[in-house]
């Protein structure tokens, strides 16, 4: 596969990288301001209680504005993932297969967050609707947000594999990044089974499916932005020094 060694191919990667802190800030703000997350709404709530949550005049603006912000910027995580695809393409692999695996996860995964955002916004759009219908959108939002963790796991597993197989004197990422990604994959995994129960650590508001999973995603966003930034900024400096 071709290597990107000319400077033009790196142009703009640094600009995209500097958009990531704003992206992470938007994720954190949404997480803090969406009233359904602190504390996470338990799945045991009745239809009337769920409808009351969306009808509450104190909640309505926070629900809508936070979800609109997430609708705008949440998908920006694809930029981070695609910058990581470029790092994988610079590794000493014999085929582009692992980069393709990562690109597949990067495109299929964030859609799930986006659809969850749409379901929540729909639940909030006409809160005076029959509570059974509000509950339906509410359930679909929470399930879509929490359970399909496959592509988040894939991002971690394929990147770890790519790092292990990057067999060259100066690998693109240090090996601890691979181990970190595998640990994050393990932390995210239990959430896949959140639908099996309405209570306990596996439920969508539970210690495993909500707190451990989302803490792992947050930590992953920050750590991967940092290790990516070191590479993107160093590559560019090396190019400029060589030019």
């Amino acid at each position, binding site marked *: 596969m071709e290597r990107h060694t000319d400077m033009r191919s790196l142009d703009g990667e640094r600009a995209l990288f500097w958009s990531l802190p704003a992206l992470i800030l938007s994720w954190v703000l949404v997480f803090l301001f969406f009233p359904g997350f602190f504390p996470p709404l338990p799945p045991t709530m009745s239809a009337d209680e769920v409808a009351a949550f969306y009808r509450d005049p104190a909640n309505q603006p926070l629900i809508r504005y936070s979800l609109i912000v997430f609708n705008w910027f949440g998908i920006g995580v694809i930029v981070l993932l695609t910058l990581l695809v470029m790092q994988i393409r610079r590794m000493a692999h014999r085929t582009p297969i692992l980069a*393709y695996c*990562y690109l597949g*996860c990067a*495109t299929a995964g964030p859609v799930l967050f986006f659809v969850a955002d749409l379901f929540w916004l729909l639940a909030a759009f006409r809160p005076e609707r029959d509570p*059974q219908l509000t509950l339906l959108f509410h359930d679909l939002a929470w399930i879509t947000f929490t359970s399909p963790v496959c592509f988040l796991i894939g991002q971690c597993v394929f990147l770890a594999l790519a790092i292990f197989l990057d067999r060259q004197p100066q690998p693109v990422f240090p090996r601890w990044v691979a181990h970190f990604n595998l640990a994050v994959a393990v932390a995210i995994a239990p959430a896949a089974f959140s639908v*099996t129960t309405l209570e306990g650590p596996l439920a969508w508001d539970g210690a495993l499916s909500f707190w451990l999973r989302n803490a792992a995603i947050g930590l992953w966003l920050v750590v991967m932005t940092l290790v990516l930034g070191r590479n993107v900024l160093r590559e560019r400096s090396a190019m400029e020094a060589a030019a």
Partner: protein
Amino acid sequence: MSRAPRDGGLAARLREQWRQNPKLELWLAWWTMVVFYQIFGIVFVLMTRVMPPPKPWWEPERVAQWFADTHDGLVWGFGIIFLISFMAPACNALIGYSMRRMSVSPVFAYSYIAIYSVSAFPGMLLAALLLCAGALRPDRDPQIISWLYDAAFMTFVGTMGLFLVGTAVWMVAILLDKNRVFPLWFGYLNICNLLTEVVVAPAWIFKAGPFAWNGVITFWIDTLVFAVYTAVFIALLRRMTVRDDLREGPLPETPQLATTASLRF
């Protein structure tokens, strides 16, 4: 090229492959594909009872009863799907690589990977999410449960174009390829898989008979064709990996890089 030591156990041979096999990336993707389709079959046939599908003509009360009867299989089965579906991109990556190994433009590989990345949501995960929502609350209004049931089966069965166009892209690449990555007859076999997506369209209209979502034609014949097609391309991708010399130009007919003999475990 060193062979795996004959005296070593499975772990030793695997470690040897991990260190030495120049086609490790291809073999990892191929084995991931094999494991994914096995788990997919177990979950969709044995656990969630989505294949063969329940009846499209059931009244809402009967549908609610089906969710109650299948509850554990649905939530644990789809839990497994939510956990392991990251394997699907490995299948798409390997098939995409097969097109990069051909003499054709990369546009085929990139189109295929993009189309199949999109297909994961409408073609499988959406149905899984809708059925999980149905299973989550057995006390939900049967009319709403019935809506979830229809939406799940119709998105699962009725997502056609992505697989239609995706298969067509692979087919055209195979027919144009001068590197002989696949035999020509496999190019034409793609037409059979492509036609299943055409034949399934009446499921959007009929609620009973051979063209309903559980019909003899729409489900049984289509699933048979899909199963044969999948088994064939898994075998042919294995053959491609065995023959591959990791270079450009025609794919050698004989095994290259002496790596496969020790990979049989």
